[in-house]
């Protein structure tokens, strides 16, 4: 299903309205310091009132079957509002991994719960070095003799890893990296929350000690699945980044218009004006790169992999620039805890590095271009 322009606008405004009511700055600050790190009531409302968790899940699995374009709109808004909720982990990471696996049985088992907002999920790939490259993974899985598997090892930087009901874990078998589904309520699984640079995105460390698991997709197909997933989830992240960058720009422009120094608004100084214009350039590029990539994904275009790599790199840079300069335009007040500028700075840096960082995504782009 594809929404037209006016439907997209409508979607944006209803999500923005919802987030303004449910995820204002006070709520974000309260949640980022709480144990839970998200508000289950808000999560339930996002599912019941707006049907957000099911937005991109195919209709056969109980979702509304929209595409990346629609998802991008929602993610831009969540990025603006710094929503603390398991949306990114569940809908972007886990659901996309299930779909990319091509495992219809696993999809039928897990996606309806996700679509309905009953199940939260996440994807655990990186270990202590933070790499998302399946080739560098050391967690292992062995058959348990009954058709099931046992996974052992450690995972770090697992988004919402202490709360997700379903954990999709990449582990190595004799056949190579493979994807496994692990239930939160299983034995041998321990999750501890990590101290994070970006407090609005909870991360955990998992210890798996011969944890019972179900193979998702083919044994040894994890590398291929991950390559596909990384493209789609980095486009999701890009949308979130573009939304955050846009918010930083708006804050800066507003401050520059109103803050008086030397008897005039600081925005009347060319130094500040150019700073804001530079931010605008970055934000425009970011929105174009992430939205275009989403469109190409929905069209199933051959150009998608290149566009995904461009969106990831472009939006990572744009958000970091916008978040840094936003503090600078605010001066001293931008360096205080009470001002939201640092929350965006933290999110921008953390997102820039989430899937490996510039060295990795630049290389991926060149690789996609055959360079």
């Amino acid at each position: 299903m594809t929404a037209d322009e006016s439907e997209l606008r409508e979607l944006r405004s209803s999500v923005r309205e919802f987030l303004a009511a449910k995820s204002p700055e006070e709520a974000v600050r309260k949640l980022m310091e709480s144990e839970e790190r998200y508000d289950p009531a808000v999560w339930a409302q996002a599912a019941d009132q707006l049907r957000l968790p099911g937005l991109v899940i195919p209709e056969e699995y109980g979702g509304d079957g929209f595409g990346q374009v629609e998802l991008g709109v929602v993610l831009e808004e969540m990025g603006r509002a710094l929503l603390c909720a398991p949306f990114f982990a569940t809908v972007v990471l886990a659901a996309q991994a299930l779909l990319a696996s091509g495992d219809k049985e696993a999809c039928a088992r897990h996606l309806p719960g996700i679509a309905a907002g009953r199940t939260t999920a996440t994807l655990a790939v990186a270990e202590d070095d933070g790499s998302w490259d399946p080739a560098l993974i050391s967690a292992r899985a062995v058959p348990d003799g009954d058709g099931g598997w046992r996974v052992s090892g450690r995972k770090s930087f697992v988004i919402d890893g202490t709360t997700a009901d379903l954990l999709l874990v990449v582990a190595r078998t004799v056949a190579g990296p493979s994807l496994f589904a692990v239930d939160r309520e299983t034995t041998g699984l321990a999750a501890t929350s990590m101290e994070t640079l970006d407090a609005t995105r909870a991360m955990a460390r998992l210890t798996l000690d011969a944890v019972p698991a179900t193979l998702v997709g083919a044994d040894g197909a994890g590398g291929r699945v991950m390559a596909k997933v990384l493209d789609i989830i980095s486009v999701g992240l890009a949308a979130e980044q573009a939304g955050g960058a846009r918010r930083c720009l708006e804050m800066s422009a507003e401050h520059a218009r109103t803050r008086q120094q030397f008897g005039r608004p600081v925005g009347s100084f060319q130094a500040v004006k150019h700073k804001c214009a530079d931010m605008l350039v970055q934000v425009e590029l970011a929105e174009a790169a992430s939205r275009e990539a989403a469109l190409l994904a929905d069209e199933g275009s051959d150009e998608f992999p290149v566009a995904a790599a461009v969106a990831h790199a472009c939006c990572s840079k744009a958000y970091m620039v916008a978040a840094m300069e936003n503090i600078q335009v605010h001066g001293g007040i931008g360096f205080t805890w009470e001002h939201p500028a640092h929350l965006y700075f933290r999110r921008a840096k953390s997102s820039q590095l989430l899937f490996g960082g510039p060295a990795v995504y630049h290389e991926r782009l060149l690789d996609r271009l055959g360079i």
Partner: protein
Amino acid sequence: MGLLHEPHDLQDFAAEARRFLDAHAAKAPDRTAFTWGEGDDSMAYFSSLPPEEERAQVQRARAWQRIRYENGFGWITGPPEYGGRGLTPVHDLVYDAVESDYDVADTGVLSVIGLGMIGPTVLAHARPHIKDRWLPALYRGDAIACQLFSEPGAGSDLASVATRAVREGEDWVLNGQKVWTSVAQHSQIGVALTRTNPDAPKHRGITAFLVPMDAPGVDVRPLRQMTGGADFNEVFLTDVRIPDDHRLGEVDGGWSVALTTLMNERATVGSEGAGPVAAALSPDRLSALMRATWTWDDRALRARLAELLVDAMATEHLNTRALRTLRGGGTPGPEMSVSKLMYGQNLTRAAHFVSDVLGPRIIADTGRWGTYAWSELLLATPALRILGGTEEIMKNILAERVLGLPKEPVTAAAKEVRP
């Protein structure tokens, strides 16, 4: 350090410093033999210590400053009549170079603002008996000082301070609010800019005062910064009575007092080199980090590292040259503003370089030594582009005062004098 190969009085002085340090401090571990994974990995520029620990640290700073002072190394450039040693800035530099081989307490809480900025201001502008009272106290580590300049409405535009001082007999009565005041929570004195003549053009209606921080009506409230701790404060002044002899400089002549402080601020902020700051730009540390993350042979990162080190080392040379000029009795030119600008940029670039080397390891704490610890520097860097004059203001100064470029057109509003 080229400056050590200088006339013999300097060599004698260095030998004397070494004798003093040998007697009072342990040698620092050999910095060239830095080992990854050993020692403290903290990269905190701003402290986020619990209050008791912070107080203990302040006490250690004081104790070390006192030992320095009592042995003739606490105020090397100060005039002897106020307890100084009467030597040159180069002696100061020589001492710093010698001391960097020893493991001594970090005295930043005293030195950056109190000794680096407020001390010289008091020396230049206070009455003799006030100098007698406070200068030895500052340099002996008994008193800590803060800079009560910025206000909610006066940051870059410092001359528009609105805190009022009104004369009442032999006293002045101060009312207003200061903000971003670093170390006010530990300070015994502060230098405040106040408006004494609302009718004069704004630069000419300002008077500076030395404010005892325990005076009734001075209320210091911590302000939490984005790094999590609270190194700076809001300071509320309500009917604070200050005797006229605590005035610095002339009535309505406070702007020239402010300029003394600001000039020294640029010099201190730009040339400050100890602790995590030095570590962040240390070739050893950065190359060890690259080895530990298997990025040692990454060509792009190596090129960036080289660029970073070129800038950092050139900035250091700039500082050295400014000190040479000072030694020759001259006044350094634009070096201090360039140095202040580069200081913020060098550390900002270093922090982002390190985060690219670390990748996701800087976004959450895996417990690995020397990884997540860098997030503290990363979060401090935005401040370094703001405090002591923002990057934009420093560039304006360079363009207008050094290059003689015209100022931005003044609007009608800017001509008005703000009360």
